């Protein structure tokens, strides 16, 4: 039998902290209904939330495409933000360009990208200064 898949699409609004997390929350619900193991659900939820919040804080929003298949969950986050100058630096624990305002809200520890790396099995960042960033992450179901 050919593997079935479900595709989901979410728009992420610009600079709105109150709705950030809605997409990852919705995906979490879908994964629960599909009966995925709780560990997989949590890894997807945490990494997707971090990425979603990055789009809000650093990149004026964007959109997320999620594809769920029996063996993996792929999340592609696309924004038209400023891009990332040095990906290696951005990936380092503690590196952050978040401004004081954002830090006041409890963000800007520079732990988002490292956590996404830790919780996903594959992660690819494509970025162009002034054009935007695509963060493509995959969580495999049977890989722990």
């Amino acid at each position, binding site marked *: 039998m050919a593997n079935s898949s479900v595709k989901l699409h979410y728009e992420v609004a610009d600079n709105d902290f109150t709705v950030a997390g809605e997409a990852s929350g919705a995906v979490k619900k*879908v994964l*629960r*209904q*599909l*009966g995925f193991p709780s560990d997989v659900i949590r890894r997807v939820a945490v990494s997707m939330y971090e990425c979603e919040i990055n789009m809000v804080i650093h990149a004026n929003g964007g959109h997320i495409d999620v594809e769920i298949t029996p063996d993996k969950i792929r999340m592609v986050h696309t924004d038209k933000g400023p891009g990332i100058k040095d990906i290696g630096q951005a990936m380092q624990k503690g590196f952050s360009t978040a401004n004081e305002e954002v830090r006041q809200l409890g963000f800007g520890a520079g732990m988002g990208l490292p956590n996404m790396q830790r919780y996903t099995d594959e992660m690819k960042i494509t970025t162009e200064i002034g054009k935007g960033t695509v963060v493509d992450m995959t969580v495999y179901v049977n890989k722990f």
Partner: protein
Amino acid sequence: MASEKRELLYHSVCLEEGDCKGCTTCMRYCPTQAIRVQNGKAKIIREKCIDCGECVRRCPYHAKRVVSDNFYTLKSFKHNIALVAPAFCGQFSKVTNIDLILTGLKKIGFDDVFEVARGAEVITAKTKEILAEKNHEGPYISSACPAVVRLIAVKFPSLSDMVIPLTSPMEAAAQMARREAMEKTGLEDDEIGVFFISPCPAKVTAVKQPLALDKSSVSGVIPVKDVYMKLVHALKSVDKIEKLSVSGKDGIRWARSGGETEALGIKNYIAVDGIHNVIKMLEELEDEKLNNIEFIEALACTSGCTGGPLNVENEFVANSRIRNLTEHLEKGEAKGENLSLMWDKKVEYEPFSPLDTDINKALTKMQQLEEIYARLPQLDCGSCGSPSCRDFAEDIVRGKAQERDCIFRLREKIEVLAKEIEELGKMIKE
């Protein structure tokens, strides 16, 4: 399968069909989307219900009932003890003395009384020990509220290891009360009745079918409201108040939200109350949005156990009274030696059943669900009998509802039909 087992679960909350008007109020407030209105009656999906009592509180026609024990059950025992929860003491206006309440209980059929606050003091001490060991990452979650423990079992499996595997103050108190009574009376264990006066259906369920214990030490559960009227009358005829209360401030403050944590003396904590707030908090915890938190006290009822749906008094008034009643008390440190305070078994993850046990089939059903959802008005009006358009789409996919149950979809269909008939009518004329 886990979900089949949950079908067989005992539930204290049920529907009195005759009183249900099908108004959908309970359905809209149920935190686990466990209610559907079918043929004008609000049915509970057993595997989803956590007996939180939110529907009991919300139903304007009082059609959601709580099955419990009553005073007749006392006849099965030679010696009966009332287990009095701290929240109970806030139910009475004009009562400025806990001893009066306790003395009154001995006039309405109980041979003795025992304060659950003493159990709470014992649990407080034990919790401190466990927190000091700290053998996992992230915060500990209190296991005091059975509705919350059940919620975690069905919805938040990744958090289950954070729940403190301790029995409740009620169970600790029941063990202590039994032991004391056996010594005092010389009776056998099974001749002694221990009755919890309950503010909530969750505690009834916790006694009838404990999640983490092999058997409860409590013999029966009687709702606060059933004891209340009897007691109010009896209080008038109390001429000599006995000195019965021995518990301190730390135990009694468990009655309200935040009290448990205050007794523990923890700095970085979250005290959340109200089942919808609890769910929001646990979602955040699961998504690792909470940092540097050591302890989470989560209670299903707003304001804590004083907000239990079987209470009589408004929770804010009750909390204020409890504050006054305990002002002069010492901290309180009940001794609980040789009690069995740890859980007998781990709470199993018992999720709501997925769309299908075969992941490929589940994905196909999810596609259908998304397609159906896209066609629905997305107003979450509830007139189809499901709590939201998404839940309705899920019910259709599960074969439990039909698209024409949506009045908007039905109207669209009728419009199409009407046009077709009009066309046909024209053709006949021509």
